[in-house]
């Protein structure tokens, strides 16, 4: 269908009636969102000041309105992308008419302005959901106001600073196309969305925390109201990090999934503090302690997420994943500083309302375990933050350039993670208030047994490196702990109801959702820990020349390069090799690693061929193809247990979903 797009300056009087100007429509939608958000913010504040229920209701309605306006903006952007309207500046910068349809859809968040639009839209969605579903409480109006305030920043950035709908006066024939690394793989459709759902989701607890500070009602109420939001945001963020690791694994070509790259570290930080938070809130729920610390953690989590988005989008830190710099750097810095001063300042000002009578019956208790958990995660967060910012600090102070790379981060985090693993096994077994020494001793015996069995088995299996060995041993301890956690309640239930053990187990699993959900989550963490230890410690990297037609041995496999192949698609031209992976005479898989050249981009991107197996992956990445077609050079990687990282991530998310599910109908 032939469509004409006339893009003119806004004041041009010769507008042809009947032609839809997407750039203008999108800009209008964004400005509408700005206006509605300002209205919601103002009417909310005035409504609270004057205790006017209708005004606060109107501010909630404005949250819905902002979501509608931003949905319109997103729809306009999608239409512009799908119809190749290069009169819209973002489409011209980021999309290409030769991309397949799904790439055009995801191009919306492939570039800077579009990703902020996505953030604002998801934020508006959360704000609308909050306004619609939050129970009526003294905190709700303030929470809505804070959400509107944060939202005002993001839509303001889109509307005023980095407008993706800016018109292009002479639309080019074709746009620049997205970064080759971002159109190479379907995960581009999933990871960023998960990331935003996670990070943005953690804005809601922040809004409630600020509301609690402002109103002085810093009790357990705001924790209860936000538990679902916090856990949901945390789960999405966890899923996003694991999905990001899988994406790196399948796209970057070196067979790894985590490089302690600055961008990875920055998004890891709010995850660490959020994990500490989901544990320490339970202490507040049960023992009404740690109010101040929890508020501090919530505010810190949100602050870190803003810091990370600032550093990622501003070009201050260089990274493989970075978005590139632009005019929005100073704007995001300003917002970060404002949030820091306002939120922490509020907490300082209201610290009397955060005071509580903290007391413990015993250090050896569930509370003690959670406290130690928080210390470990805080220490880890500090170390990661320091390592990430250190090169910048040194350069600012002395001009010297220094590198803080993976060895540093491994050195600081691995011991802490081992401590976390140990604590994860012991903590849930400790009762609240005080652990009776008899139960502690019995449990400890079983835990040690589990550890010894696992440790011996792996040692006899050939594992000698200390960190993997320690991880596997602790995994055994954790499995013993999970068994103990299940056996106790099941046996009690079977005895109480006189039913068979299995049906008692089913009942326990069905009724104690929170506890079982957390057990599943911890189980997922154990799986990930074991997989990371194995794939990190026992990975084998080589580079091999594979002559066509000749099998080459690699780590017990035979790699047989059969023939070269080429693919020519509208958006890319690829050259690769068809390689069979053979073991014991059987062809396990036929992999097709390739080197891609995208239009409009000089940088070549490799797509590896990966054979996923239960116990190890065989990962092939092309380095070079002989111009005469006689051989290829591949990087071959054998990574034990990598698949279990993705499985563990899935288990973790499922555990959270289960924990959040509806509780049992209470029986009378």
């Amino acid at each position, binding site marked *: 269908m032939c469509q004409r797009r006339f893009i003119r300056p806004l004041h041009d009087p010769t507008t042809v009636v009947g032609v839809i100007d997407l750039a203008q429509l999108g800009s209008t939608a964004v400005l509408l969102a700005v206006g509605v958000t300002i209205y919601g913010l103002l009417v909310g504040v005035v409504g609270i000041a004057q205790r006017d229920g209708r005004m606060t209701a109107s501010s909630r309605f404005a949250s819905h309105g902002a979501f509608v306006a931003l949905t319109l903006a997103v729809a306009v952007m999608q239409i512009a992308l799908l119809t190749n309207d290069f009169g819209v500046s973002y489409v011209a910068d980021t999309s290409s008419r030769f991309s397949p349809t799904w790439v055009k859809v995801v191009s919306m968040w492939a570039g800077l302005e579009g990703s902020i639009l996505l953030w604002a839209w998801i934020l508006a969605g959360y704000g609308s959901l909050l306004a619609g579903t939050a129970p009526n409480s003294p905190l709700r109006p303030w929470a809505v106001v804070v959400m509107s305030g944060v939202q005002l920043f993001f839509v303001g950035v889109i509307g005023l600073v980095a407008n993706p709908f800016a018109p292009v006066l002479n639309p080019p024939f074709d746009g620049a196309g997205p970064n080759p690394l971002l159109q190479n793989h379907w995960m581009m459709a999933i990871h960023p969305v998960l990331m935003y759902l996670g990070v943005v989701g953690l804005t809601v607890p922040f809004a409630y925390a600020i509301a609690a500070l402002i109103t002085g009602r810093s009790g357990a109420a705001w924790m209860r109201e936000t538990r679902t939001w916090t856990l949901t945001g945390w789960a999405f963020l966890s899923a996003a990090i694991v999905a990001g690791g899988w994406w790196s694994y399948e796209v970057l070509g070196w067979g790894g999934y985590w490089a302690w790259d600055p961008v990875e570290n920055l998004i890891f930080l709010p995850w660490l503090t959020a994990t500490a938070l989901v544990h320490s809130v339970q202490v507040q729920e049960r023992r009404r302690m740690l109010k101040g610390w929890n508020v501090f953690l919530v505010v810190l989590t949100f602050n870190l997420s803003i810091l990370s988005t600032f550093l990622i989008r501003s070009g201050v830190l260089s990274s493989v994943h970075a978005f590139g710099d632009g005019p929005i750097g100073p704007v995001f810095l300003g917002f970060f500083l404002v949030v820091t001063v306002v939120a922490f300042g509020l907490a300082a000002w209201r610290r009397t309302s955060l005071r509580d009578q903290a007391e413990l019956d015993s250090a050896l208790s569930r509370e003690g375990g959670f*406290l130690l958990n928080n210390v470990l995660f805080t220490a880890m967060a500090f170390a990661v933050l320091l390592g990430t910012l250190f090169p910048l600090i040194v350069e600012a102070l002395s001009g010297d350039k220094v590198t803080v790379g993976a060895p540093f981060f491994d050195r600081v985090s691995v011991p802490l993670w081992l401590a976390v693993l140990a604590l994860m096994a012991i903590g849930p077994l400790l009762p609240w208030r005080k652990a009776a020494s008899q139960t502690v001793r019995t449990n400890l015996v079983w835990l040690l047994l589990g550890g010894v069995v696992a440790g011996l088995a792996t040692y006899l299996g050939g594992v000698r490196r200390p960190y993997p060995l320690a991880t596997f041993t602790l995994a055994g301890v954790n499995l013993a702990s999970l068994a103990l956690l299940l056996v106790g309640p099941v046996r009690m239930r079977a005895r109480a109801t006189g039913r068979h053990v299995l049906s008692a187990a089913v009942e326990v699993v069905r009724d104690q959702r929170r506890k079982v959900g957390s057990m599943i989550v911890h189980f997922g963490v154990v799986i990930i820990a074991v997989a990371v230890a194995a794939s990190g410690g026992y990975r084998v990297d080589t580079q091999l020349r594979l002559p066509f037609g000749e099998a080459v041995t690699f780590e017990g496999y035979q790699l047989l390069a059969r023939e070269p192949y080429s693919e020519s698609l509208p958006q890319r031209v690829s050259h690769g090799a068809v390689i069979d992976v053979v073991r014991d005479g059987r062809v396990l898989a036929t992999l097709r690693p390739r080197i891609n050249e995208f239009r409009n981009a000089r940088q070549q991107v490799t797509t590896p061929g990966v054979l996923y197996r239960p116990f190890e992956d065989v990962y092939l990445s092309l380095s070079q193809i002989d111009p005469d077609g006689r051989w290829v050079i591949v990087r071959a990687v054998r990574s034990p247990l990598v698949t279990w990282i993705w499985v563990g991530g899935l288990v973790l998310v499922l555990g959270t979903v289960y924990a959040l599910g509806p509780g049992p109908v209470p029986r009378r």
Partner: protein
Amino acid sequence: MPRRLLLFTLLAAGAVMAQVELSPKVFEIAARLRCPVCISETVAQSSSGTAEEMRTLIATKLAAGESQQQIFAYFQQRYGDWILLDPPRRGIYLVVWLLPGVVAAGLVLGLALLVAEWTRRGRRPIDVDEDALAALQRGMAQQERP
């Protein structure tokens, strides 16, 4: 400086280099060096031409019997401390070496002190109003009389 004299002949473009097959040891060493032309990757991770050439060079040096330290020193002499993934252990860089451990220890110590204080508070006996207690006891004794 004979030590730094590295005589080699470059053939025309497209020549096949001697070291194409790279052992895992090469990648282990390469993983500890930063790729100079990349933004934030190690020589093991990067697929750039320079990284490939550096890996080939590492393989050549290993085959010639050089030790890991010598190979790191070779690159350090040409690119500076920046090319190593760990900062040097001197001066201001000691901050990043020591501070994480200091902070972790400090947090644990702080927690221990807090927990000690909180458990002491928990064990403090409740202050009892003696008169009210006596009245209560008298009342209870009265109720027990038939």
